[in-house]
């Protein structure tokens, strides 16, 4: 069977996988960004012990493979009475791990803010929460755009691990097709091209976002 003919027959089948990959990647990326911001806020606002807590958390997730929390949440949570759907378990694991990385990215960008701005914020009587929301966070997010783009690409590719807990995202889809048809080359080449497309799209998105910032 020619490649073109194979794509014509089985191409539409990939839409399910593409959908799951996109949904889990976008959902987990948004969740991880919010979680990363929360971790940053905890680090900045709770003194030394809060910062140590966040450090320990980051170490824990940075030094373990992401498949571990995926399995842990998927297989262990039902035992404590939380039988969540696979996509929720997988998404949560991705959020927990990428949130740790993102909080570190954001922390690096805090240092790029000129210290004197904190004097200025204090001098106009801005409370810590307002300072974080209006002064720190907007600048930190903008300075972090390129690094956040990289992290999102990594996250996007890590969604392939969700195949391990029965989510029919792209990689799983290709595996199923291979099992059905025996056409391993075709099945996985199409998936590779689709990943390439998704990743390129993500990169373009972040580059455009970075360029759209007017004040830099």
């Amino acid at each position: 069977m020619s490649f073109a003919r194979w794509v014509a027959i089985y191409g539409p089948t990939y839409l399910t996988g593409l959908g799951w990959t996109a949904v889990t990647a976008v959902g987990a990326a948004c969740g991880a960004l919010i979680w990363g911001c929360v971790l940053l806020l905890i680090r900045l606002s709770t003194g030394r012990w809060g910062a140590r807590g966040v450090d320990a958390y980051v170490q824990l997730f940075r030094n373990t493979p992401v498949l571990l929390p995926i399995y842990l949440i998927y297989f262990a949570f039902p035992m404590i009475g939380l039988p969540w759907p696979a996509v929720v378990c997988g998404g949560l694991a991705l959020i927990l791990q990428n949130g740790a990385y993102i909080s570190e990215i954001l922390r690096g960008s805090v240092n790029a803010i000129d210290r004197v701005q904190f004097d200025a914020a204090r001098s106009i009587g801005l409370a810590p929460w307002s300072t974080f929301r209006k002064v720190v966070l907007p600048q930190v997010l903008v300075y972090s755009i390129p690094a956040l783009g990289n992290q999102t690409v990594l996250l996007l590719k890590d969604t392939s691990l969700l195949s391990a807990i029965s989510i029919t995202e792209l990689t799983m889809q290709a595996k199923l097709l291979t099992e059905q048809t025996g056409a391993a080359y075709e099945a996985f080449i199409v998936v590779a091209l689709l990943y390439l497309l998704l990743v390129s799209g993500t990169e373009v998105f972040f580059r455009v976002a970075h360029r759209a910032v007017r004040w830099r």
Partner: protein
Amino acid sequence: MIAVRGLQKSFGTARVLRGIDLDIADGEVVALIGRSGCGKTTLLRCINFLEEYDTGEIRLDGEELWYRTTPGGARRRVSEAEARRMRQQMGIVFQQYNLFPHMTVLDNVLLGPRFAQRVSVAEAEALGRRLLARVGLEAKMSGYPAQLSGGQQQRVAIARALAMRPKVLLLDEITSALDPELVGEVEDVIRSLLSDRIMMVLVTHALGFAREVAHRIAYLADGAIVELGSPADILDRPKDPSLKEFLRRVR
């Protein structure tokens, strides 16, 4: 009025302020001059509590600022919320402008009124426009700080400080970082404020400007006010030898 009494501050073993006494009357402009490292900027930053100080007291219209003495005699900082309320009675302008780069000029000016004083959007905007018009920058309202010259940025910083409707304006070497041709426009704004009779404390190296706008000049050396008097007294008839030496070097 502001009353500073016995203000002392050390950074580690270095004594930066060794007992400062200074009164500033309503509507008065006082200039602080002295060699770099003499403590004049630190004094300014202590007045609005950007720096803590070790002993002494500062009063604004009779209210003791920043510290409270408990019945047991212990000295304690006021709460953060209280400090914020007190700080809103003062505006400070920094040497390096310190504008928020990610906000438009108008938003820089609005930030304090909107989020520290909880003024309504409409009211804050009207105030912001009025103040920017006053410093001659209404046309740059929706621009960003990076698109402005140093002089323009500093004028925005003055508008931002005025937006809190402060009783006193603290000016920390506000023209030192500017190119010479931009100094005039910033000084003009300060001149225009004299008719408002707002209290001002300005740390400066520009002696000519200090002579022109200040009612009194304080000369600081080694963390103490060595000589205090009218501009003519300080600049034309200095008594202290170190002040004479300082003036000789500056001129």
